[in-house]
């Protein structure tokens, strides 16, 4: 059994929405409601679900970009081989934590500062964390540009993001992320804005880098076909909860939860002779079943580390 790099237990993130006169009516949106998963060292987990199901909120809470409401998030300290909680990090500890966990965003057109050159963009994390001497930093930038396939680096250093294509920009985002040599990278749909032809080369680049640099990914996507290509395990999310989590191939061959089945049946297959099984699902019904499950027994293992949420979905199957 491999050691876990990340352990998340019952993560909750609620948003308060107020309305009415003097904002007296308070409503709570449970964006993430009791999510638990582990990611072993060197493995990647795909987080799959429809828009608005809480994938990105989970990721942001993991990266300490937004404070969580409740729950426990633990990371592995590589030096002491012990897990530490990310709750009360401060000062140097927090800085060190941020070095080890990085994020790649969805839109390469909006996540790069348009007024900075590529060199400035990639150099910034090194400057913030004060890593290496100034000349070392320059060398590191050149090196990382080669790693992500932007060669020759000299051509790219003085350019601005608007001079690059979408695929090249996403490579710059990846370079900026990996220059910190993180152990854990959260990828929020990094290829969904890219053209089909460059998508695979970015995905291959990320897979190769994961192998070479021992990086684990939390890969967020709505496309199961992409998740299958990128991840060892897949977690399916619905309305703020993980409903099923299993090894990638196991999940696709043997889906249990009706929502997983619905999701798999909705992916077009690049084969005209293949007839997709149509699987319809009444979301309101599923929603009310999940809402009734108040005792939160969590998930049950049906073998081979294949976990399914325990709420009673028999009526829907």
């Amino acid at each position, binding site marked *: 059994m491999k050691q876990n790099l990340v352990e998340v237990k019952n993560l909750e993130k609620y948003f308060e929405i107020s309305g009415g006169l003097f904002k007296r009516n308070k409503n709570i949106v449970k964006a993430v409601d009791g999510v638990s998963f582990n990611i072993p060292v060197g493995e990647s987990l795909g987080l799959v679900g429809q828009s608005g199901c809480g994938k990105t909120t989970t990721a942001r809470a993991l990266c300490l970009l937004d404070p969580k409401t409740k729950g426990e998030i633990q990371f592995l300290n590589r030096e002491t081989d012990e897990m530490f909680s990310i709750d009360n990090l401060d000062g140097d500890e927090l800085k060190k934590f941020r070095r080890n966990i990085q994020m790649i965003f969805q839109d390469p057109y909006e996540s790069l500062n348009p007024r900075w050159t590529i060199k400035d963009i990639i150099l910034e994390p090194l400057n913030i964390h004060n890593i290496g001497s100034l000349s070392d930093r320059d060398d590191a930038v050149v090196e990382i540009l080669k790693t992500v396939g932007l060669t020759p680096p000299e051509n790219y250093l003085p350019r601005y993001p608007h001079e690059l294509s979408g695929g090249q920009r996403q490579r710059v985002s990846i370079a900026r992320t990996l220059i910190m040599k993180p152990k854990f990278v959260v990828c929020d749909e990094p290829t969904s804005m890219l053209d*089909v*032809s460059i998508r*695979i080369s970015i*995905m291959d680049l990320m897979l190769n880098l994961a192998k070479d640099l021992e990086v684990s990914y939390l890969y967020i996507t709505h496309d199961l076909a992409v998740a299958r290509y990128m991840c060892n395990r897949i977690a399916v999310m619905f309305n703020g909860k993980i409903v099923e989590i299993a090894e990638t191939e196991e999940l696709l061959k043997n889906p249990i939860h009706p929502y997983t089945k619905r999701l798999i049946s909705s992916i077009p*297959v690049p084969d005209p002779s293949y007839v997709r099984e149509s699987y319809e699902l009444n979301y309101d019904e599923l929603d009310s079943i999940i809402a009734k499950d108040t005792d939160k027994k969590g998930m049950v293992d049906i073998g081979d580390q294949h976990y399914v949420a325990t709420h009673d979905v028999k009526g829907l199957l």
Partner: protein
Amino acid sequence: MSKEVLKVENLNMHYETLSGNVSAVKNVSFTLHEGESFGLVGESGCGKTSVAMALLQLQADNAKISSGSIKLDDKELVGLSEYELRKVRWDGISIVFQGAMNAWNPVIKIGEQIREAIREHYPSNTKQQNIDKIKELFEIVGLNAEIMNRYPHELSGGMKQRAVIALALSCNPKVVIADEPTTALDVVIQDQILKEIKKVQELLGLSLIYISHDIAVIAEMTSQMAVMYAGSIVEIGPTNEIFSNPKHAYTKLLLESTPSVVGEKKKLRSLDGEPPSLIDEIKGCSFSPRCPDPTDACKNGLKEMGLIKVGEGHYADNCCVECG
């Protein structure tokens, strides 16, 4: 074989820009038969949408059709006056636009916007007739009739897209162009919309042109397809035939670069490099710089582009048929 509805022959279109002429559509020819669905696939900037715009004669002001013809039921569309075109648009050919989010006027109710299109083509209809027609359309695309009185911002992305489909069907068009109708949508919503389009097409016997960059969607939606690269069609034929027996190197790469959730997990091939700039005139084969295994003739630009027959109703560009 059913009747030919739309026939495009040797269509050439370029955009006049400050840095030179961009040849966006080069020698494109295809025929659409009645009740058929025809797919147009390729990466961004390959000219798919330019073809769609030319079919409707809705191209930008700097676009010039230098040669070629577009015939709808034997009626030539190229060179028609704006007044005559207004009769053809929506009535003869209609389009489901790419971004459903931006296809609606935000300050006019959905029903009113659809009624506007119907009024233009059927001026003698009464208001009640038009409302009944919209109700009928909404039923076909799976929308509640009361959506008619809503403003676009009150609808979700999927609902807006359904309403756009209803709008495209409102004047009983002969040909419907669907230009990436599901690109901005979630997978599950995409699935619903695809089913809806398929259902509507079978129900009304529509002739459909489906434009997408996603070859998996094309596989499901169409019976005939064409692969476009750098403004030209590089392979055209029956969808089944192209998927089972691709001839052009670019088609092969496209097919091998699409991940799937069924079947064995395969290593995917990536397509490196960028498509060529369409400003410069390209000598020989436009795909050769990215061709994984070009023949000598391909590399040296000795072969002119042109489709040759490779199977029953299946044509591919003569150059890269022998490559990788």
